[in-house]
């Protein structure tokens, strides 16, 4: 009888635990965000400044639209996290040349592409309500699009390389080359100036219940996406093992 692997003993229950915790917390956050929180709060409670090009000088009221922040912010944070994992896995692969880092890098790229897309879609929906324009070519939005395209580009280019070793080496170098992209997204407003996107949403959400729920929403959704990272990592590692056996 073969000895059970680390995957079966440790990784499998751990992944399930992370997934169950992430799903449970995410469902709680959604329940509070959509059902419990009252959308009719006192005027100006959750005000946010209008983009400079709009004629109204007063802060605009968000009404129901603030609910989308509980998804938008955690998705943006997960994208940042995946970007960091991608860079770290690239460095570790170049140092050790072990396939596990390549699997981690690709899992981070896939999850990052999904969360980045979700960030842009939720941002578009909110922008359409708040600014009357879902998409504007302003620094924060454009740099996020560039980051998403970099994720997609790696997946596409990787598919075009046949040699496994070259594929892994290319991905690691590419992962390192994209290191400046996330700082570009997060510091784009400081570097190029603010146009529409606020620098920080949290400082503008002036209601305690919203800030508290936002603080729970971030770890909840990050855990949920971490579960997908773990699942994809093991799928990719096993696929690599099978290829090697052949």
């Amino acid at each position: 009888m073969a000895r059970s692997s680390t995957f079966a003993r440790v990784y499998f229950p751990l992944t399930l635990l992370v997934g169950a915790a992430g799903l449970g917390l995410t469902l709680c956050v959604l329940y509070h965000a959509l059902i419990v929180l009252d959308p009719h709060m006192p005027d100006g409670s959750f005000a946010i400044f209008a983009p400079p090009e709009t004629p109204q000088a007063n802060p605009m009221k968000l009404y129901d639209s603030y609910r989308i922040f509980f998804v938008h912010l955690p998705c943006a944070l997960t994208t940042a996290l995946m970007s960091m994992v991608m860079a770290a896995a690239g460095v570790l692969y170049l140092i050790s040349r072990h396939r596990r880092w390549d699997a981690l890098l690709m899992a981070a790229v896939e999850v990052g592409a999904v969360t980045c897309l979700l960030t842009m879609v939720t941002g578009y929906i909110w922008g359409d309500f708040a600014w009357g324009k879902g998409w504007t070519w302003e620094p924060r939005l454009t740099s996020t699009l560039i980051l998403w395209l970099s994720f997609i580009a790696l997946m596409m280019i990787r598919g075009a390389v046949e040699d496994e070793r070259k594929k892994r080496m290319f991905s690691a170098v590419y992962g390192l080359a994209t290191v400046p992209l996330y700082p570009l997204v997060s510091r784009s407003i400081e570097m190029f100036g603010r146009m529409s996107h606020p620098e920080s949403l949290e400082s503008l959400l002036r209601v305690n219940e919203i800030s508290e729920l936002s603080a729970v929403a971030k770890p909840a959704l990050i855990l949920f996406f971490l579960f997908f990272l773990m699942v994809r990592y093991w799928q990719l590692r096993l696929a690599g093992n099978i290829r090697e056996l052949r």
Partner: protein
Amino acid sequence: MISMIQASMMALGLLFSPGELGPSERDAELPHQPLSAQEIPATDPSLERKYSDKFEQRVREESAKAGESIDTLYYGMVAVLVGVFGIAVHALIAARRQDQALARLASPQGAK
């Protein structure tokens, strides 16, 4: 470096929004004479308040209607999240089976 990034962003913006490069044909036909200070009507504060109140009322009515669709949205999102989670768990179980099969193949008994 920063100016290069800025220039590439601008180029990307121009590439995807060619309509913003210059005035369209329709705009070119319109007279572009700015209004003088005398021609701009003075804003009436009571009128502004009236329209602001009306807008507020309209939003509250729309919000009440949206309340029902928010319930539907919540249950829809629960269904999607649980569904996606189920698919991922299924993939994880399949990966465990694969891993066990690989472990059997790698063991001395399996190799025989």
